[in-house]
């Protein structure tokens, strides 16, 4: 009989003793098929791509020798292609060969050429020249760097990551203009060959964590990488935990700020959201807004967000516990109002709560799927019409509606979508335990939750840091946000005081 059941929430981390030094790697460079002649090259490439129709093989004659250009049609930028070909228009063959060698990159092997083809390059073969050449003809396009719709802020930068890795890297580079910003690239996915960048600031990030991440990613053997979210689930250590162990964001300013706090950013080509790790619980409650407004406002809203965590998890459970176990905690002035509301509910309050919570989740899901204008209508129909009708019909008490509404609002306050979903999910077990044991059930569940949080680690960092282990300096930026000058990374070196803004006036005094 195995006694390992208590490890239920902890998937054993795939700890590898691999101490390989990270290498820049295209994973296919091991096999080598050398280019021998024109016909062999074309056949090899053709065979590699089997029957795809978008592989275009263009035959041209230059000085009575065949010049073959091979490219993938969807990538082709006509202008670039024309420009490349026009470079080759020379009078004699020798000059052209020179030009070919001068302007274009030489491919060592055919497999390398295939990889380049997949990357949007055009392969050029010239009869009689024993080398392959590649030239970039890839058309580039991406949507504008607009503010992401799921992470809006009021004051601050309104740029967002897009689906292009290069653009995203640029967005970070231009925010941290320093040689210490390190971008390491690798590809994962045996079929999709997705580029991944591990980005960190040298000297701030923990090199052990960087190495760990590198190994973790390197050891992944998956054929395809659809998005950052998919990889996140593969590399997180505790997959049975309800809490996200990486922060998923589409905001470059948020990513840059986290880089400066020593965290690591994982960026995936084709995915507008980047992963930030290691994180603590409090990271999910920080928003760039906190730092862009004055500290009193920032602290206030930070505190509200943290309070919203407790409200969203506890409130329905608290209501259930009170009306079905401990009505004596309701003060005298309120008791008759509550009693009047719940008197005609025909079933236990957990059912009532469940109906309302499920309705709410349905509404939420429906309004996301529907196009924008209809989505709003759903909100109104759901909120007002169903809410009103369900109370009139006597299926749910009006107090329950208030509770559910407050809970819903507070669960959407959390600035991270992942965390907000976790919170919404957590309140269901909380409701059940409250329905069985009342307050004791709530306490039991909270105890379990806190213990779980204490045991949880995100890549070697305590999930409750800086609360546990206590770091007073960092605690200034967790529950509330202390004034910017008191935070460590803003402190001026030595004892220098702030320079007066009105220095000339001082001279008069």
């Amino acid at each position, binding site marked *: 009989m195995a006694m390992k059941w208590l490890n239920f929430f902890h998937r054993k981390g795939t700890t590898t003793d691999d101490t390989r030094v990270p290498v820049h790697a295209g994973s296919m460079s091991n096999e080598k098929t050398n280019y021998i002649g024109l016909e062999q090259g074309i056949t090899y490439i053709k065979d590699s791509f089997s029957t795809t129709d978008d592989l275009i093989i263009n035959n041209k004659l230059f000085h009575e020798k065949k010049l073959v250009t091979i490219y993938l049609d969807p990538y082709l930028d006509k202008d670039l292609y024309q420009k490349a070909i026009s470079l080759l228009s020379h009078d004699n063959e020798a000059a052209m060969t020179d030009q070919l060698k001068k302007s274009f990159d030489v491919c060592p092997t055919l497999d390398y050429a295939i990889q380049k083809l997949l990357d949007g390059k055009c392969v050029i073969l010239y009869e009689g020249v024993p080398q392959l050449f590649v030239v970039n003809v890839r058309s580039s396009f991406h949507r504008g760097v607009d503010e992401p719709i799921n992470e809006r802020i009021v004051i601050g930068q309104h740029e967002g990551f897009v689906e292009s890795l290069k653009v995203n890297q640029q967005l970070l580079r231009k925010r941290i203009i320093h040689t210490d910003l390190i971008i390491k690239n690798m590809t994962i996915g045996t079929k999709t060959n997705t580029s991944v960048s591990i980005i960190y600031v040298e000297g701030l990030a923990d090199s052990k964590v960087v190495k760990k991440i590198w190994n973790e990613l390197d050891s992944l053997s998956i054929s395809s990488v659809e998005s950052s979210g998919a990889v996140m689930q593969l590399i997180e250590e505790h997959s049975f935990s309800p809490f996200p162990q990486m922060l998923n964001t589409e905001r470059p300013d948020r990513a840059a700020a986290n880089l400066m706090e020593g965290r690591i950013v994982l960026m995936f080509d084709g995915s507008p959201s980047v992963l930030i790790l290691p994180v603590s619980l409090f990271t999910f409650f920080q928003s760039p807004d906190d730092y862009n407004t004055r500290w009193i406002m920032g602290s206030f809203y930070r505190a509200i967000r943290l309070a919203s965590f407790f409200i969203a998890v506890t409130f329905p459970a608290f209501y259930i516990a009170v*009306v079905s176990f401990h009505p004596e905690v309701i003060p005298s002035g309120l*008791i*008759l109002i509550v009693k009047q509301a*719940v*008197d005609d509910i025909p079933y*236990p309050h957990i059912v009532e709560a469940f109906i309302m919570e499920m309705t709410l989740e349905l509404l939420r899901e429906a309004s996301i799927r529907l196009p924008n204008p209809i989505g709003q209508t759903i909100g109104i129909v759901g909120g007002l019409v169903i809410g009103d009708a369900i109370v009139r019909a006597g299926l749910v008490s009006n107090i329950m509606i208030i509770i559910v509404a407050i809970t819903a609002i507070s669960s959407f306050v959390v600035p991270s979508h992942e965390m907000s979903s976790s919170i919404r999910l957590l309140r269901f077990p909380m409701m059940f335990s409250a329905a*069985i044991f009342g307050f004791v059930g709530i306490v039991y569940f909270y105890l379990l939750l806190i213990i779980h949080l204490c045991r949880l680690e995100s890549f070697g960092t305590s999930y409750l840091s800086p609360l546990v282990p206590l770091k007073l300096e960092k605690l200034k930026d967790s529950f509330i946000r202390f004034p910017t000058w008191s935070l460590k990374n803003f402190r001026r070196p030595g004892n220098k005081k702030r320079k007066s803004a009105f220095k000339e006036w001082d001279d008069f005094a």
Partner: protein
Amino acid sequence: MRRNRIPCLFICIIVFCTGCWDQTFLKDQSLITAIGFDKSEENGQLLMSVAIPIIDKEKINELVYSHVGTSARNARRSIERSTQKTLDPSRNRVIILSEDLAKQDIYSLLDKFYRDPRSSLIAKIAVSEGNVNELLTIPLTNQPEISQFITELIEGVERESLAPVQNLQIICPLMFDPGHDFSVPLLRPGKNTIDSAGLALFDGTKMTGKLDSNEAMVYLMLADELGKITSITQKVHDEKTPDQNNYITFRINELSRKLHVEPKDNGEVATTLDLHVKIAVSEYPVDELQEEEKIDELTSTISENLTTYSENILDKIQAANFDGLGIGRHVYAHHQDFWKNYKWKEIYQNVQFTVNMEVEIVEFGIIN
């Protein structure tokens, strides 16, 4: 890995399949908001009356159910049978005892409230001069909830220094303390209303005396337990016409009381009460407060009046064997030997009170 999950599943099944043992739905309960105890006229048993709010769509009415039983618990069971729903004592706001019951041991009635973890300890206690069942069923004008009316009445009485602040828990330490006694408000049923009729004084757990409202106020002053507002009216002149001019009404702004307890060898206890009262005149039609002499005269009259009045009241509470000032506690705390030699309640009659009243007028209102 898979085997880890079996115990978790097991626990989930246990939890969900069993049941909710302690569930007591608010909707399935009848809340008790007031409880009254009478001595049944037929067989001398206990007659318990409870007020239960009945909630309609629009308004709330309180119905009063009553039943006879041998004990409070027993009577409640009988009532429960006639109301279909479970009675929930946790919302109870006031307990009213009839005078003849209060003169017996009241702890035997209240024990159930102290013992039950669900009961509400903040309920007020009051003694009714008349029949409690009748008091609870008085048709009040403009107030359908009798419990609320009585609670507010008692709270008002406490605020206006007609009774000390009390609830079930506050009187409990005093009920058991041999050196300190408690008092509760006295209610008198009227035609369409309920009046406060002063204080019921308890010796231990038995009611032994009464004070009327005016006496109660001065008693609270002596006990240093005044409420927020204390407004006293006194006759200070005899000759003025019309008669209203003979009276002064003042508020007590500030009171400092010093209590000296000095037991003597012969079993007597000399108790000195030094009171310094700062008052504010709120009604004095004579309007002669600009001259210092007149003020002095007035102060001395008031202080003399208060002193004589206090002495009368002290006699009265001593006659009731009611140690509301906690003299016994002082003796216990500071004169342990004396305390051990005597049985306090037997020598309480021997306490010699001396009252030194000092009155100072500090406010005249906005005219002199």
